């Protein structure tokens, strides 16, 4: 039953998201414009056709209805700027991004959470300061700059995208989990655990972390969404043929069919990740 409800919620978000996205795109300035118009060689007739085609898109509800019914039949439409079926584009690019995000979220957690635990274990020490400053540095570097640095120093072209996203996630994961750890550490039962004579490792894994597991899990779900949004600049800068790059191209050329589909995908991934984390939250944390 709760699974059905979760599915219903995902569906609702996706459908509503698609519609809102369509409205946002169609009514944004520049929608009716086309780069080709600048070409003096373009004939008046072609110009007229282009205009009419885009003017039709303003009938939001009808268009969206048609789009949804097409979707129900498994047709995603054709990208206007690339002239290829959206389905094909997604099949090409979705796996690239998903795999990269899975890797970066894992990597980001390994780095961020480990760093948080280390800083937590040595409060007030230079290590803690170093952790804070280094994560600040990561936050302050623009994605493009980070990508360039990785290329200059790391020569890691293949995995640079994964690293950029992971390093964008690391400071967020670090800071949240670091604060949660500190907060949890202040609760009386941790003091009592110490008074029991337990070792620090046991206290960390059995008394400090479990009570905040729920919040950490919520953060895992969120980091998938964050990873997805960090992937867009990373893919654009590094020219990784994933959906981030595709989304950027689509946005620049106001490619409505492609953009609406991409909103679907993003909503689907984000909501599913969050629904999963909600489910885990309910499962693993007693009493919640």
């Amino acid at each position: 039953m709760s699974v059905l409800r979760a599915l219903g919620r995902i569906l609702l978000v996706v459908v509503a998201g698609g519609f809102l996205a369509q409205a946002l795109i169609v009514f944004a300035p520049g929608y009716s414009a086309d780069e080709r118009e600048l070409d003096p060689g373009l004939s008046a007739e072609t110009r007229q056709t282009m205009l009419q085609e885009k003017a039709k898109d303003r009938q939001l509800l009808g268009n969206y209805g048609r789009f949804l019914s097409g979707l129900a039949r498994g047709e995603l439409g054709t990208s206007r700027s690339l002239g290829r079926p959206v389905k094909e584009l997604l099949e090409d690019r979705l796996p690239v991004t998903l795999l990269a995000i899975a890797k970066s979220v894992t990597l980001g957690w390994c780095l961020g959470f480990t760093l948080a635990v280390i800083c937590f274990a040595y409060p007030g020490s230079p290590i803690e300061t170093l952790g804070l400053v280094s994560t600040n540095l990561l936050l302050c570097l623009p994605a493009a700059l980070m990508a360039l640095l990785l290329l200059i120093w790391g020569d890691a072209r293949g995995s640079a995208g994964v690293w950029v996203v992971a390093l964008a996630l690391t400071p967020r994961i670090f800071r949240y989990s670091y604060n949660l750890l500190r907060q949890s550490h202040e609760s009386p039962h941790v003091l009592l655990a110490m008074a029991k004579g337990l070792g620090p490792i046991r206290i960390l894994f059995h008394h400090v972390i479990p009570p905040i597991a729920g919040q950490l899990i919520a953060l895992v779900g969120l980091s998938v969404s964050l990873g997805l949004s960090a992937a867009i600049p990373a893919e654009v800068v590094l020219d990784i043929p994933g959906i981030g790059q595709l989304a950027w191209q689509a946005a620049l050329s106001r490619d409505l069919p492609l953009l609406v589909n991409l909103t679907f995908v993003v909503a689907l991934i984000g909501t599913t990740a969050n629904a999963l984390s909600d489910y885990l939250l309910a499962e693993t944390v007693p009493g919640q």
Partner: protein
Amino acid sequence: MSLILIPFLLAAAATPAELSASKILTGGELRFVLPSEPKTLHPLQVSDESGELIRYLTSGSLVRLNRVSQKIEPELAESWKLGDNGAQITFQLRKGLKYSDGSPFDSADVVFTIQKLLDKTMVSPAAESFRPETGTVEVKALGATTVVVKFPSHVAGVERLFSGLSILSSRSPKKEAVGLGPFVIAESKAGSFLRMTRNSNYWKKDSNGRQLPYLDGIRVEFQRNRDIELLRFQKGELDLVSNLEPEAFEKLKTNPAVTSLDLGTSLDATQLWFNQVPTAPIGAYKKEWFGSQAFRLAISESINRKDMARVVYHGFGVPAAGSISPSNIFWYANELKAQEFQPKAALARLQKEGFRLDGEQLKDKGGNLVEFTIVTNTGNKVRERLAAMIQADLRQMGIKVTVAALDFPSLIERIMRTFNYEACLLGVVNTDLDPSSQMNFWLSSGSSHAWNPNQKTPVTSWEADIDKWMRLQSKEIDPKKRKAAFDKVQVIAALQSPIIYLINKRTLGAASPRVKNLKPAILPPHMVWNIEEIYFAEGAGKVAK
């Protein structure tokens, strides 16, 4: 000519005939990067630069523009003849040529291609010039090797239309996937790369009878980020970079491991114009300024183009005189000169028009502060810097300029639809030498008549004059007379300055020293237009992947 080609280039551009055959090595894969993925690979439908390049490398056309001499040369057609007062052209085709899949080439293919192009359902930039406003184009084959194309009326410089037209196969089952070009597409990964291999049926041979092209293949990757492209080029992962920004070029020049190539002044110009659309949603007094010749000239005189060339272009740009770059050897009007920087003259001119300096601010005769906004597109560093320099120059004149960088579609909507802008700074890319391709821009009724498009009748007498001379040049057959007419247009445009031309940048590129026989040119595809003759120096057979 001496302006355009730098001597050291000529040394690199030795023709194969001058080299002994043994020195030329076959093989190797040429690698470079394009800023975007081609939107389509259909040769008749390509509309973007990347698609155009792939089309050029994989297909053949009846004639070809020699990018260095800027003359039309025979290609699939051995020869051609104009007739019927320039309304008809007859091509004599080469015999025995084969498409990449082995299917034969003859006049049927040419007829097929042109008919396909004329098909109304074909959305094709290439087709636009084949669709005259009145009447239709007719094409027929006279035997296997002769094709006649008949236009309803005279078309100026008609042969150049065919230099960009890829001839499709009418018989091959693989349709437009086969071509007559030096390479065929072997593999492509969407958004990532495209690999081409040599067309073993390519018809050209070098002077020693060796089959061209020399290269085994080409690998084109799609990468927008120029900084990364440069980094990879310097690491030796790429063989060529073209369209370099001056700043990057200057850095590469100091690198002994690469050959930097200054190909000469490009046909492209950066320009500024004021909105003169009568219905534009801007203040009436501003419309009056923008419609005033004196105001426009004064602005033009207040801009220090030499500083722009030196600061923004690091010396790799020249002040522009008009829409036609001095590199356009035939069409450039020699009497034109770039506007000098004359702030004093500009001020005097403005004062004559009733403008006056009030303290540090300029006011018009109605007492309005002289200030306006320049829109430009985002993401172009050079253009944003130019805007900042104009801002600084005009501040000296007491004019306050605001710069608004907009994303491209929003910008187009403003300058082509809503006309909700005051001035626009934009770069214009020219790929065609012939002014006939600019009709839509010069005619007052044209939709690309930037400052005031789609006029029913010319608003000003000078626009009427331009209309007259442009129509005349398009009807004329004698090139000299056409040139004389177009010179008039250029002079009027300079005098009235509806468009303030700023800088023609130089076309810059760089190549790995192992790439031989480059004949880089200012016309696209700058570095690889003679791709079939390019080869690698020793060791090229083993290319690291």
